């Protein structure tokens, strides 16, 4: 059974149809990428899946459980976490505290219990701290734990956001352009981390523009154009798909991508 099933999702803004009857599935343990020119509807799709936007029509099912219309915090509780295009850390807190916030949906002490420090609350608090630390350790960020989030470099912020998302214990991780703004070495490290995350049992769905990374990393690719699915399949199939090539080389894509794709397709 598919982990995530997106069925006939449609969303428009005023007169503009951003997502037009998009359907696809994500299998457990996969790394799946969504690619497409800017304005193809990728971030809108992410926002719909993660509950920030409501779809006009269509359904989303997680392990055959309908989650369309869920609020963001309910989506997290159900097992989907996401990162944002621009790292959205809580800048007035430390790195460790940011990741601790990620534990929120898996912990339960509320106002009264926390005020009075009822039995069990301090223990849970310790547990939150330890789990958060282990997430940082997993991604090699342990040395940053006490640093204020605002003092980090861009690449570091990206990684901390990843740690924070992982702290929610997701089954499915949505990554919104995780490689943008990173230098080649950082991109390589990112790819490594994503593979390690998959090995841990987390399914990954990512939006990305870096073609090399996408082709290297993903098991499956979904191509969106003008809000519609124009191709879906493993990297080899996508690379040889004439429509995909036309769309990319048709001048709607950024020059760097055009060169890359031309280089990739010339391998055929």
């Amino acid at each position, binding site marked *: 059974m598919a982990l995530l099933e997106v069925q006939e999702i449609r969303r428009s803004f005023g007169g503009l149809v951003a997502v037009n009857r998009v359907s696809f599935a994500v299998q457990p343990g996969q790394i799946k990428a969504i690619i497409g020119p800017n304005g193809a509807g990728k971030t809108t799709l992410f926002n719909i899946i*993660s*509950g*920030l936007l409501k779809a006009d029509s269509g359904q989303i099912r997680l392990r055959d459980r309908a989650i369309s219309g869920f*609020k*963001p*915090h309910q989506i*997290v*509780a159900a097992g989907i*976490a*996401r990162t*944002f295009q621009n790292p*959205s*850390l*809580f*800048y*007035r*807190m*430390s790195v*460790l*505290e940011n990741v*601790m*916030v*990620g*534990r*929120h*949906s*898996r*912990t339960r*002490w*509320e*106002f009264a219990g*926390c*005020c*009075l*420090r009822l039995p069990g*609350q301090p223990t*849970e*608090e*310790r547990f*939150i*701290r330890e789990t958060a*630390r282990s997430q940082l*350790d997993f991604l090699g960020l*342990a*040395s940053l*734990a*006490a640093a*204020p989030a605002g003092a980090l470099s861009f690449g570091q912020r990206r990684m901390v956001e990843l740690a*924070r998302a992982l702290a*929610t214990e997701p089954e499915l991780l949505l990554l919104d352009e995780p490689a943008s703004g990173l230098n080649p070495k950082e991109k390589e490290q990112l790819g490594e981390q994503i593979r390690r995350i998959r090995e841990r049992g987390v399914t990954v769905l990512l939006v990305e523009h870096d073609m090399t990374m996408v082709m290297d990393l993903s098991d499956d690719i979904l191509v969106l154009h003008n809000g519609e699915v124009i191709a879906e399949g493993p990297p080899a199939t996508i690379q040889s798909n004439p429509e995909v090539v036309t769309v990319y080389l048709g001048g709607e894509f950024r020059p760097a991508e055009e060169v890359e794709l031309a280089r990739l397709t010339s391998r055929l």
Partner: protein
Amino acid sequence: MKKAEDRRQNQECGTEPRFQTSDFRLQTFRTLLPFALFALALVALQLGLRAAGREYCLTQLTMSLYYAIVVIGLCLVMGYAGQVSLGHGAFFAIGGYTAAVLTTHDFTRYGTSGWAAGMKAAHVLTARDDLYGNPILTASPGAAFCAAMLVTLAIAGLIGYPALRLKGHYLAMATLGFGLIINKIVVGTALFGAADGINGVPEWRLAPGLTVSGRSALRVENYYLAGGLVLALLVLLRNLILSRVGRALQAIHDREAAAGAMGINTAAYKLRAFVLSALLAAMAGVFFTHYTGGIGPSEASAFKSVRYVALAASGGMASLWGVTGMSTLLNYLSLRGLFGSYDNAVFGALLILIVSIAPEGPLKPLGQWLRKPFARSAVERRLEHGAA
């Protein structure tokens, strides 16, 4: 040699607690220090005033402490959850007026029913003499307190639910409008004493030896009661802020969308913080009313609500201690008449000045300078609290 190196490195990463068990006592000392200092300051003030023969100043100090409770609650809502409220004077008034009405209204009409007898036995209703010596049947202060809390809970929930979905300006206007509605209702209704307010509110006997009352013989006792209440509140709220809930509130303030993406039910938390702060304001109102023996419509005025915001801002919106200190000090000066007829203008000007020049509160730079010898950041303090 290597082991010590490793340990220090681990300490810096936060994977090992900064202080070993032998330092545990030092850490506990550091945590309790501010509270101990506060208690000490309370005692020192009282003894000092007695020595100077000016113990009557305690009255205004006690009132300032009760006002400070409102501002501390506002600190939670504005400094942590990041939601502005320009109507908190209304909640203070709702608490105070509910208590005042119930403890001064004569229920003798219903006195003969079996119901009433049962209520008398349960200490919900009490028979007493009013200001003029006539026997009347009123609610007991304890029951009135409970009623006031319930009424505030209902109203805060009702207003908060739709209001907190609004942003910035709109929330400010909505709370201001709400405050003004309460003000107009209170001024315009005979039941609430119209422009004169309600007088003759009885004392409240909490326990043998502890009575909320304005009698000069009980002045010292009431001062410590108010101070103790503030202290207890500070302990509870500090625990809250350093916990999962506190982090959630700060996350909502910092970046609401990301907070939601982390599984925080932002709407619910904002509402709960708002309702909690409303309950605190109402509680302060009830105690204040029994202490001063009455309440008037000025407590629900926009001036008062703005004053609370000014005090929260001047204490450094998110600093519980700063807020307590500034609030008590400035209210005390105001009650002593220092600002004369410019009272409201002073708070308005204060608000403008603070927010223009030092939006995080003027005490922060001062506090940082004072704290240099102890050299711990807020972040480090929070990390330590969890390790305790």
